[in-house]
């Protein structure tokens, strides 16, 4: 059985190395074939995996690596080929990692209580999906969304105030920059005392964590305007409001979106740490992770991490799309094809 798999993959790899560059579709086909064969190898394993198990696993993984490099070197001609060369390599990486993870865990017979296999995580995800949905609602809607909804506007408004006041620029800006280095999560327990141990205190953590990057970036964007453009507007005798609307604010938008990207990532991490540090009612992904880790239910831990990563990547993606819509004129985005 294993021998057949090894042979198939080896033949495919060799034919790839010979014809690969010209036969892009053939290369692309090897990726799903390798993935399927890898899954088959792992599924067919015996109680004590033998030499053939390891050999076929490594062959399959090697096949994936070869096909990805071949794809990267290929010269796409048609739109379909272009699409394949852009999507397939990045899609292969998680398949490769998951196969490796599952193959190693199964191969070494690691018990579920020490390190779960991919299968365990998927089972946990499917069996307690309602729980995860409920946790995600608490973590992302009640805590992250509310915190961002408060933190970002206040950050932008304070940024505008600071940009227009020399006193605040000199006095507050160095402090705000220093705050960037303060581990704000340390504030979590204090906020827990102030706002109670339920979701409110975690939303407060998000507010603080998003406030400072947004503020700093807004100030930078408002200040660092092209002096020539500013002079032009002055020459037209524009009112400060017009200067703000037509020059300063559009100039600050890319900075604000950059801050939003940072804030979206940092707020998810901070909220999970805050849930670690403020044990409250057992709701929310962070609490789920820390409670399950304490009970040794690592499959649930990984499933919760997966869910939170998925949602946080989605948020990041939404911000990127918004950025493209609102600041599509910016050079950094124009250059990308």
């Amino acid at each position, binding site marked *: 059985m294993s021998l057949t798999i090894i042979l198939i993959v080896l033949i495919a790899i060799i034919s790839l190395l010979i014809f690969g560059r010209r036969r892009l579709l053939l290369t692309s086909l090897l990726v799903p074939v390798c993935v399927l064969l890898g899954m088959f190898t792992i599924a067919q394993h015996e109680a004590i995996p033998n030499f053939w198990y390891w050999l076929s696993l490594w062959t399959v993984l090697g096949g994936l690596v070869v096909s990805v490099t071949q794809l990267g070197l290929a010269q796409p001609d048609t739109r379909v080929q272009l699409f394949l060369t852009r999507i397939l390599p990045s899609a292969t990486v998680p398949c490769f990692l998951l196969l490796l993870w599952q193959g190693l865990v199964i191969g070494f017979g690691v018990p579920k209580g020490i390190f779960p296999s991919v299968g365990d995580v998927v089972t946990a995800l499917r069996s307690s999906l309602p729980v995860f949905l409920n946790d995600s609602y608490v973590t992302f809607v009640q805590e992250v969304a509310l915190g961002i909804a408060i933190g970002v506007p206040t950050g932008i408004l304070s940024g505008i105030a600071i940009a227009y006041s020399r006193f605040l620029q000199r006095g507050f800006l160095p402090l705000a920059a220093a705050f960037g280095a303060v581990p*704000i999560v*340390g504030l979590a327990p204090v906020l827990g005392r102030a706002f109670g141990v339920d979701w409110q205190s975690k939303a407060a953590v998000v507010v603080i964590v998003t406030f400072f990057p947004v503020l700093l970036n807004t100030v930078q964007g408002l200040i660092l305007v092209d002096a020539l453009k500013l002079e032009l507007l002055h020459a037209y005798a524009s009112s400060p409001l017009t200067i703000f609307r037509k020059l300063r604010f559009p100039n600050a938008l890319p900075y604000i979106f950059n801050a939003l990207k940072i804030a979206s990532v940092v707020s998810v991490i901070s909220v999970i740490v805050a849930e670690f540090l403020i044990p409250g009612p057992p709701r929310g992904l*962070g609490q789920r992770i820390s409670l399950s880790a304490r009970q040794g239910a690592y499959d649930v831990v990984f499933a919760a991490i997966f869910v939170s990563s998925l949602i946080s990547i989605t948020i990041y993606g939404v911000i990127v799309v918004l950025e493209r819509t609102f600041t599509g004129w910016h050079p950094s985005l124009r250059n990308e094809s």
Partner: protein
Amino acid sequence: MQKVRAQWPLLATLMILFGLGYPLALLFGLPLARRDMQDLRKWTRASFSAASPDTLADEPVQGLSFGATPERGILIFDGAPVEVDYNIEGNEVRLEQPLSPSDIARDTINLIALGDGIYSIPDNLNQDISLQPTIYIDGSLVHPGSVETNEVPDGQRTTFTFDHPDTSTIGRLVVDDQVVDDYDIITVSEAQTEVMLAEPPAFGSSLQAIQDDYMWLNETQLVFNTSPAETASVQAIPSVMRLAEQLQGEVDGSNQVFNLARGNVLEQASTRRLFVGSRQLDGDDERPDERVDGETSAFTFASDTGLISLDGVLLTALTDFTRDGNVITLLTTPARNARLRQHPDYLLTNPSTGQITLAQPPTEPVWTNEYSYYAEPSCGNTVLTCFFALPQHPVPFPHWIIRRAPGFVQKFPVSDERNVLRAVLYTSTGTLVSLALGGLLGTLLAVVFVLVRPLEQAVLPWVIASQTVPIIALVPVLLLVLGNLGITIQTSLLPTALIGAYITFFPVTVGTVKGLRSVDPLALDLMTSYAASPVDVFLKLRFPAAVPFFFTSLKLGAAAALVGALVAETESNNARGLGFQILGQVQSGNVADVWLLLLTSGLLGIILVNLVGLIERLVAPWLGARS
């Protein structure tokens, strides 16, 4: 001078932030203080009990005086209101006709002096003295009272403190049922006295101090604070006339609702004794024979009269239920596990106003000789006093934090691992190791990406995505895996370093890739025309171009790595770092210490970022002009 002037906005802002701490402290503290004030469990308890006459006379009297009088007094003798007419003026009761001594006190017992202020009830007495009787010395009332020590005797401790009202002090000490006279009073403050005993009380014994005139040692013996004169007659009187409290409410044969003089009455029935005429009311309730399972609506009780309550709310007959003997049929089925009770005599319908509903309309006065109530918030009567009495302020007043600073630094000697400076050193070591690791990994990855473009296309999106993974969530798993690999996570720097490296490598990779690519194309062309090897291109062109990008990213990573280190420390129970200290102080409630630790770690973050800047200037001095 010029320098100082340039800094003044910063100083002014610092002062403003310092000042802002005060309203913030109030903003967060006052709601907690208010909650404390409204929480009845945090109120001091007091109890009303019927008073005995201050003095007993040998001949018939027309006036009796009592130490304290209730708002609506009623004279009680032998468990029933007296049949004589009287009026109450202040603490004095004027009787319309004189009463003989036997109408005021009955069954007098003469106590036997055992010496040293200890008196005993005679052994041969065949009276029920289970209710501790009132004590008179030469016909004057004396009051019992004792206070337990605040500490637990452990067989070694010899110094103990006692709380008492600031108007009095403590009297003699009693260990279990033995009087102890061999002690020194060390300090006496307003409401506390500290004493040192010659012999430590045994483990588990009870140490009390007499606070009033006397206390009972056991069921038959009592000890006086100051021994009465040898000639004095010390009498115990089980049955004496008392001034009890009459409940407010019309006794007209139809009214069932009565009110105690005090509100916020304790709900437990055992803390009060109510009477109608000479009959004591039963405060206990009956449970139904059937389970309240959410389906049954007919319930059987032991007796066939009484009030019915559901979850403490009184139900009215006919509109809520119908009665057939001892079977009650509720018109709406009660929810599963609802508390359905029958109260044969009465129900405390409103504890906060002291309202009581009787099962039968009384025809005789309703009175009580004992009940407990919540007197006042133990933190004080205003929100502000409660605010200052808060055990943990969420945001302390800024000057409290400053005042705490010297004690905070000196709390542990430098030789102790828990010393703050050592914790700072430990955490910064962990952060620096993780920075080095992350910087190295990030640079390596960047070089690979620049060399092998296909790999970058495949992997870079996932490197970006990996940053949205809350890696800190993996700390518990990582610790377990490391523990299984035989690394003692309590002392190892490894968890901190790994987490920090994971957090640092991303900005370094992205920044360095950008830097390695930021080479001037002309310079690259020149190198190509000189047929320079790829190694030379890297060494002479790409690396120098990437240095500023690398350090900017490393600065970003430094702050993030510190957060990672702190969290890793809290999770790994690593008793050496700042993170563990923060968690420990939070758990023990030293909020000022938590703020100091936060300030310390903030300062550490700034220092680490500046340290990276310093290294940058050392490594790449040609960039000095840039900043």
